[in-house]
């Protein structure tokens, strides 16, 4: 049978019903490899690269493999280095899919080369998957992953109380260096302990968390629990209280690249020790809202090699905001600062354009002292940069009258 060319097998398979096709596919790995693409195509399932010996497995509609009884396909996967799995929204399908996934992942021969794992859960209420999450715990500790991505969209009304974030497993991964969380299910019952255990006990260098619904108090608890010895890059988006954020930055001394997005809340009470000691001695790049940039730069060590600063501003002319002037004043101490960027909100969210007085003293502008800055960047989301925003309106008459209003 193995002498039959794959093309002929596929031609024959088009005359077979699904039951016979599955039975034939299960007779040998060669036939399974040959027929599987056609078999899956009929069901709108996608299996990428595996048959060609690729290093990435992408399973879309994972429950389909399980519900069709395709357990036999697992052995034909070449041990992948990367794996992307999407869990469908139906609870029953999601459970079946996760069982199928665990069946595959629990075989060491399947996962000995697996380094990058992405699990996307779409629309399923994670509260209904608690037992599956508990079963998955061990996987995250034993797989030789260096990169883990938990994504998807789901309900946000099950987020655990802050106390849950204080618990957590005492286990982590020995190999994981990159973690991306972009869905609330990472903090759902059954998985939150695993998430916290991984965060606490793995040598994570790169951490990215966004599109999660943690409340300010949960962010405080969450960040307070993390002391990540190896952390170098962090990207956080959320409703984060500023004192908690600063305390987190103080703790993680190896941080080099920091991105903070979202509504970072100020607090009148600043932690006393954050005022007294320089932070982030290894900082290279920073992107954050203006007030956060100020808070960080005011306390950051001048010995850092800060090379790039990107500031989120509410408008492009922050000249008259005390915090901006304060920031510029502090920046002159950072002699390696080469890039300075301004991120603008969507045009519709912008305030009424601010007019700059004609007699504004540009020669006395604090930016004059920033002789180290070589590159200036302007980023405008969902809108257009205004000529008058970047370039002062007092341009020579041959230029400006030609511009559209």
């Amino acid at each position, binding site marked *: 049978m193995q002498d039959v060319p794959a093309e002929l097998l596929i031609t024959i398979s088009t005359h077979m019903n699904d039951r016979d096709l599955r039975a034939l596919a299960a007779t040998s790995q060669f036939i399974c490899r040959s027929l599987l693409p056609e078999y899956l195509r009929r069901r709108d399932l996608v299996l990428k690269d595996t048959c060609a010996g690729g290093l990435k497995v992408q399973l879309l509609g994972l429950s389909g493999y399980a519900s069709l009884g395709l357990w036999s396909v697992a052995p034909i996967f070449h041990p992948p280095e990367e794996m992307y799995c999407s869990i469908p929204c139906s609870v029953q399908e999601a459970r079946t899919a996760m069982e199928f996934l665990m069946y595959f992942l629990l075989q060491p021969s399947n996962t000995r080369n697996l380094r990058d794992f992405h699990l996307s859960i779409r629309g399923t209420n994670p509260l209904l998957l608690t037992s599956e999450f508990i079963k998955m715990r061990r996987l995250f500790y034993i797989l030789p992953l260096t990169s883990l991505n938990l994504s998807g969209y789901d309900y946000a009304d099950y987020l655990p109380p802050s106390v849950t974030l204080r618990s957590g497993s005492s286990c982590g991964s020995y190999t994981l260096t990159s973690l991306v969380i972009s869905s609330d299910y990472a903090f759902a019952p059954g998985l939150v302990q695993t998430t916290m255990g991984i965060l606490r006990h793995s040598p994570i260098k790169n951490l990215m968390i966004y599109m999660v619904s943690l409340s300010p108090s949960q962010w405080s608890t969450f960040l307070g629990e993390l002391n990540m010895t190896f952390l170098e890059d962090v990207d956080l988006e959320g409703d984060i209280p500023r004192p908690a954020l600063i305390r987190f930055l103080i703790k993680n001394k190896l941080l080099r690249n920091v991105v903070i997005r979202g509504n970072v809340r100020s607090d009148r009470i600043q932690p006393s020790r954050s005022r007294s000691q320089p932070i982030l001695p290894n900082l290279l790049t920073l992107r954050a809202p203006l007030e956060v940039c100020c808070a960080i730069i005011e306390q950051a060590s001048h010995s850092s090699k800060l090379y790039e600063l990107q500031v989120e501003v509410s408008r492009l002319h922050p000249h008259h905001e005390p915090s901006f002037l304060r920031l510029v004043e502090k920046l002159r101490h950072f002699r390696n600062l080469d890039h*300075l960027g301004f991120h603008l909100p969507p045009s519709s969210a912008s305030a009424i354009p601010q007019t700059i007085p004609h007699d504004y003293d*540009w020669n006395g502008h604090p930016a004059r002292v920033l002789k180290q*800055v070589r590159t200036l*960047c302007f980023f405008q989301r969902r809108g257009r940069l205004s000529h008058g925003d*970047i370039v*002062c309106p007092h341009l020579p008459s041959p230029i400006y009258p030609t511009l559209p209003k």
Partner: protein
Amino acid sequence: MCAYIQSFPMLETVHAVEEGDGPRAELLDTLRKAKPTLRIVAVFTGSLYLKWTADVQEQQPFMVDDHE
């Protein structure tokens, strides 16, 4: 007479990145004339992005290096 970008005495490059539609040659022109020694890198995205680059590719390169 002064411009915001002229406040930075040693500025060499300006990046302008926006999500908007339509031709932006005027903005590039303004930036170039504001400080003739600047290297200007502009990235414009949007539904008309392809149309715009097709329209102006002969006259205005997408990435403008003003040292020419």
